[in-house]
């Protein structure tokens, strides 16, 4: 009866610092509290956020006008200093933010007045604006931070629709409406509480018995499982994210040190089978440049264009050529989500047909990350990649000088690096698309980071208790970007 909606949150945040934490479980919570300068709409076009308008005055300079009514939850208005301080904090190596590189190189950032920020980049960086639209570039109350009344590593305080009233780790969050939120027509309820329920079945049960009003799933089968409940709706949200496999080209002990074995692996992977058997055909085969962007840059590379038979025979030939007709490999997937195990098993079956001998291990996340990104002790690793809101952002991952965390396993291809550098500064358009095709060919040839299928989020909610607004497509795991327009029906 009261004005509350309850979110069934699948995982607890991994830290409070929005400029640092790199997990979706954290991002989704930050989005309730923080705002970014820009945001995106239903079709992933950039939209005003904290900046009510912006202007690109040259290929390297931007002017942002900060929204007059915006204020942090303590009532203090958001001013240019907060924007500058936040961006500088991300840039500060001591913060250890991974977002530094996505922002490009800022030469100068200034505030002509309290509501204007000008940024001068050293070189053109097409994705600059898109990078500002990701929650990692959240605008924090810098004054309070400097005064010491706000500690971003243990508190959340932003200008977003909600503010934190209470947090019990691993148990629940209670958020109340930010009284100073600028969107005065927001229908959001007074309280948003979140219950942490990691288990899919338990979350479904909670949805059924009304303890939670909405939640998310990554397993497409939930739609099937919840179909019988007429008061529960399941909305698929297409994302630019996709499942991917990293192949360890660096390790001498891995069979994949030989590029031909990598290519054979890439060819032998049956992406359609993954779609059919793991996702019941509900998703699509995906590419280094995600399908959700509507580009067809990678569609004609041999890995995707050839028939399964041709691919298999080509793969076998490559293996024979490499003198390794039956390479022994291990696919590492994390145990965090059962979907990984399923993908790995289907992949296992499909590449076994080319002659590979395949094992699967599913260590916990921390171990997985350590083995893959720090030690480079693996053959194949399975994970998913955020596609963000601009093709050049995600594709930058193929440049190990940019994605330095990939250096443990990614081969450095100078030609590809150059191309990727180039594409960063090309504005969207035909020239860029041609460049993307070229890049896709190189990526396919290197067979080092492989795209598999796109990752759809499923938002399930109780149609009898709340009204939701969800973007059809989302680029930055910005699942609940319209939370301010959710409505409680009871």
């Amino acid at each position, binding site marked *: 009866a009261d004005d509350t909606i309850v979110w069934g949150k699948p995982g607890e945040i991994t830290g409070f610092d929005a400029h640092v934490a790199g997990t979706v479980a954290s991002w989704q919570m930050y989005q309730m509290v923080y705002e970014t300068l820009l945001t995106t709409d239903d079709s992933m076009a950039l939209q005003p956020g904290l900046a009510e308008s912006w202007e690109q005055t040259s290929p390297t300079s931007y002017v942002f006008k900060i929204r007059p009514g915006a204020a942090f939850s303590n009532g203090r208005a958001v001013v240019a200093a907060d924007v500058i301080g936040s961006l500088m904090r991300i840039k500060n190596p001591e913060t250890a933010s991974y977002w530094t590189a996505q922002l490009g190189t800022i030469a100068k950032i200034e505030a002509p007045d309290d509501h204007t920020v000008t940024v001068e980049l050293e070189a053109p960086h097409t994705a600059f604006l898109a990078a500002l639209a990701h929650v990692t570039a959240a605008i924090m109350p810098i004054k309070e931070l400097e005064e010491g009344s706000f500690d971003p590593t243990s508190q959340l305080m932003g200008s977003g629709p909600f503010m934190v009233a209470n947090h019990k780790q691993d148990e629940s969050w209670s958020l109340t409406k930010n009284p100073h939120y600028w969107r005065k027509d927001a229908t959001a309820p007074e309280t948003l509480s979140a219950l942490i329920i990691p*288990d899919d*079945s338990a979350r479904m049960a909670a949805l059924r018995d009304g303890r939670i009003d909405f939640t998310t799933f990554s397993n497409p*089968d939930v739609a099937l*499982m919840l179909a019988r409940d007429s008061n529960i709706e399941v909305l698929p949200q297409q994302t630019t994210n996709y499942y991917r496999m990293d192949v360890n080209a660096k390790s001498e002990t891995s069979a994949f040190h030989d590029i031909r074995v990598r290519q054979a692996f890439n060819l032998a992977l049956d992406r359609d*089978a993954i779609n*059919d*058997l*793991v996702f*019941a055909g509900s998703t699509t085969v995906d590419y280094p440049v995600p399908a959700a962007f509507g580009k067809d840059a990678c569609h004609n590379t041999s890995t995707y264009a050839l028939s399964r038979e041709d691919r298999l025979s080509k793969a076998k030939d490559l293996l024979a050529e490499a003198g390794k007709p039956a390479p022994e490999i291990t696919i590492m997937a994390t*145990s965090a989500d059962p979907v990984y195990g399923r993908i790995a098993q289907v992949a296992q079956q499909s590449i076994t047909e080319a002659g590979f001998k395949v094992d699967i291990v599913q260590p916990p996340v921390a171990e997985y990350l350590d083995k893959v990104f720090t030690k480079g002790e693996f053959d194949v690793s399975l994970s998913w990649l955020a596609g963000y809101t601009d093709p050049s952002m995600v594709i930058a991952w193929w440049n190990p000088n940019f994605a330095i965390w990939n250096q443990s396993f990614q081969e450095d291809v100078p030609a590809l690096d150059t191309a990727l550098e180039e594409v960063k500064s090309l504005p969207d358009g035909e020239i860029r698309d041609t460049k993307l095709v070229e890049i896709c060919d190189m990526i396919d040839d290197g067979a080092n980071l492989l795209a598999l299928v796109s990752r759809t989020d499923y938002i399930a909610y109780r149609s009898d208790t709340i009204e939701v607004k969800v973007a059809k497509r989302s680029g930055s795991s910005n699942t609940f970007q319209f939370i301010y327009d959710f409505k409680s029906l009871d």
Partner: protein
Amino acid sequence: MFSIFGRIDRLSRFGFGLLVFLILLGLIGPYLPLGDPMRIGAGPRLSSPSWLFPFGTDELGRSFLPRVVDGIRATFLLSAVAVIITAIIGTLLGMVAGFFGGVADQVVARGADILFSFPAILAGLLIAAVMGPGQISAIAVISVATLPLFIRVVRSVTLGLASRGFIVAAQVAGASPWRVMIVHILPNIIGAVIVQLTYALSIGMIIESALSFLGLGGQAPYASLGSLLRQGSAYLTFAPWLVLSSGAVLSAAIMAVNLTGDAVRDALEPLKGRSLT
């Protein structure tokens, strides 16, 4: 053996029969025409039990029955290996502690206490975290959890034996401590060890499946009964046969071991009741 069988009651006999059946099933399962446990897409995804797929199919369209049969073998094999290794180590340590006493006893007993004061599943989580998930760490976890069991029992039985005439006689005759332990003590504690072994086996099976259930046991597509349960639990409400079948078989397997353990114990140290009138 048969005389033991004759002496036990119907419930225990049922358990023993069940155990034999399950072990046989696990052993000859791969040669039975049950279908390929690994074949993805052998049938439609998540179809309910039918003649073709008696336990239904899983979320990758694999027939679930052969997977469960495979799981029986995996679960038994892993737990048995773990428990037998542990029994050997525990028996040795317990015998040394009980027979030599003094410092050796203190060290072993304290060590057992330390192991014992970790709740098994916490120890399991830690070990699986250190060693990485998989069969080896599952074996280690089972060992850590059941080792104190063996040490304690063997130690106390050995203590009881130490003052017996034949032990003292052997010592007086000049037998070395190792000779006394191997020739005289070991054969006399083996019964107690076997009883513990069956209980440890059932504990081992529970731990193995609990670890697999948490995703820390053997890795897919290898399937133990616990990992099948984990796999099925994602579809609990939609495809309950996955959880129900693997859960029922797992419980039956553990029960068979337990009942057999009871039978062995009843045969070795019968406890006769007495009526109260």
